[in-house]
């Protein structure tokens, strides 16, 4: 951030004029692109009132948007809880002093991080569906939650690990000095502190979970996108429907992202001088969809 303010000097009169000209040109080009998109949509009849009025009717919200959103949030909420649990278990496993546990946790985490979420989702969906272990109508939901848990849980495991490794050595030494075993010090001294430091990155990962829940669309889980497609097919307004679906996701995710940014500013005071750089780097991982 700070670098960006000094990339250019405090502008003098000529630079101010150039910036203003550039600003006007920029605005004009942006407006031009917007006008072109609107015109292209209007030409195809996408901006007619009948395309958009369904979103003003109560039944659209009652039968399409709200049930879809509820299913999306349900899958995301369950997946958030289970992936945090998965992440804690495997994150602590990766820090274990027992070499085989460390290795096993490492292999599982690295493997799951490299496999596309959609592949896991399709696998669990078809495997559960054909095995008859669960009722067929529950298979998509379980597949969505399991795939999201395995992937995001392993990312969270890496967050836990880098959070603990970023702590000052003194924390662990102090734990040992008061007679805790290595495992006890990890669980009761180091991980709780790491969790606070990684909170912003954790919330960014929740955004990834929420976005990835839309993959359930492909395996017939009736989440928001699925309902909006049905609405769009029924009303003949697929483009407005998908735009509304995207807007709903953007609002929720933008709220969560802002929360993460505000938290990281707040916490930077609390953990000043020892914020591990690695937590930031993982947070930047666009992860999946």
């Amino acid at each position, binding site marked *: *951030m*700070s*670098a*960006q303010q*000094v*990339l*250019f*000097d405090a502008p003098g009169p000529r*630079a101010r004029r150039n*910036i203003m000209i*550039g*600003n*006007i040109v*920029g*605005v004009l080009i*942006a407006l031009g692109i917007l006008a072109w998109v609107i015109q*292209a949509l209007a030409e*195809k009849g*996408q901006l007619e009132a009948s395309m958009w009025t369904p979103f003003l009717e109560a039944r659209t919200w009652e039968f399409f948007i709200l049930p879809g959103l509820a299913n999306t949030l349900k899958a995301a909420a369950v997946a958030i809880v289970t992936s945090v649990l998965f992440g804690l278990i495997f994150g602590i496993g990766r820090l274990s002093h027992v070499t085989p546990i460390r290795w096993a946790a490492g292999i599982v985490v*690295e*493997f799951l991080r*490299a*496999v*596309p*979420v*959609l*592949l*896991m989702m*399709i*696998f669990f969906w*078809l*495997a559960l569906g*054909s095995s008859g272990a669960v009722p067929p109508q529950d298979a998509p939901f379980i597949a969505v939650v399991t795939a999201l848990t395995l992937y995001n849980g392993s990312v969270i495991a890496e967050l836990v690990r880098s959070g603990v490794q970023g702590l000052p050595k003194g924390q662990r030494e102090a734990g040992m000095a008061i007679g805790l075993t290595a495992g006890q010090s990890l669980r009761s001294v180091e991980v709780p502190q790491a969790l606070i430091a990684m909170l912003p990155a954790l919330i960014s990962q929740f*955004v990834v979970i929420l*976005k*990835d*829940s*839309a*993959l359930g*669309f*492909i395996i017939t889980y009736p989440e928001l*996108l699925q309902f909006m*497609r049905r609405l*769009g097919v029924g009303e003949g307004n*697929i*483009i407005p429907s*998908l735009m509304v679906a*995207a807007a709903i*996701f*953007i609002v929720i*995710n*933008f709220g969560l*992202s802002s929360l993460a940014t505000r938290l990281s500013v707040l916490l930077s005071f609390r953990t000043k001088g020892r914020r591990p750089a690695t937590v930031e*780097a993982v947070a*930047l*991982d*666009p*992860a*999946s*969809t």
Partner: protein
Amino acid sequence: MEDYLSLFETYDVLAAFWINIQLSFWAALWALAIGTVLALFRISPIPSLQWFGAAYVNIFRNTPLTIILAFGFLGLFSVLQVSLASDLNDSLFRIAVVGLAVYHAAFVCEAIRSGVNTVPLGQAEAARAIGLSFLPAARLIILPQAFRGAIAPLGNVLIALIKNSTVAAAGSVAAEASGLMKTMIEFRSDLVIPIFFTFALGFVVLVIPIGLLTTWASKKLAVAR
């Protein structure tokens, strides 16, 4: 075992992966181009361009890729009848490339911006001191160092892009890996686990070398300070 091997005679698994590699390659090139321009917008002194860059990143970073690719197929292709090639499959392929590129450009922009943040203030000040204005300073001083500092995050974007190319199934690019895996499991549900691990290992083999390579390159090319 013979059952398993006979799968490879019936289905062309390598061809499916080749589609994913092609999708990723073209999408990566476009995403890098769009993302670099957006990063320049965001660090430029012109407020409207800064605003445009920030709006683009916030919109596309917060939209599920599934919606973007479904929009490409259901909206652009079916309703608006946008056609990017004379052949139907080529057209769907290119629309999927556009969708992947538009989405990942937002992450490329943020990766490059994080690279710009690794360039010390003194570099920008020195560039100004020798009389360079914004664009020459960006081109000669800031961006070369920023790209070297951004290799690790850019590598993460590339890895995500390769994995996300499977979502092109939502854009009806049926021949790619996740689509083929679905077909194979549907026909041979007795071999569901071996089929899954074949495809999973394929991605592990694609992705892990890139991770190792970018980690190595980011250390090798790091600007010594």
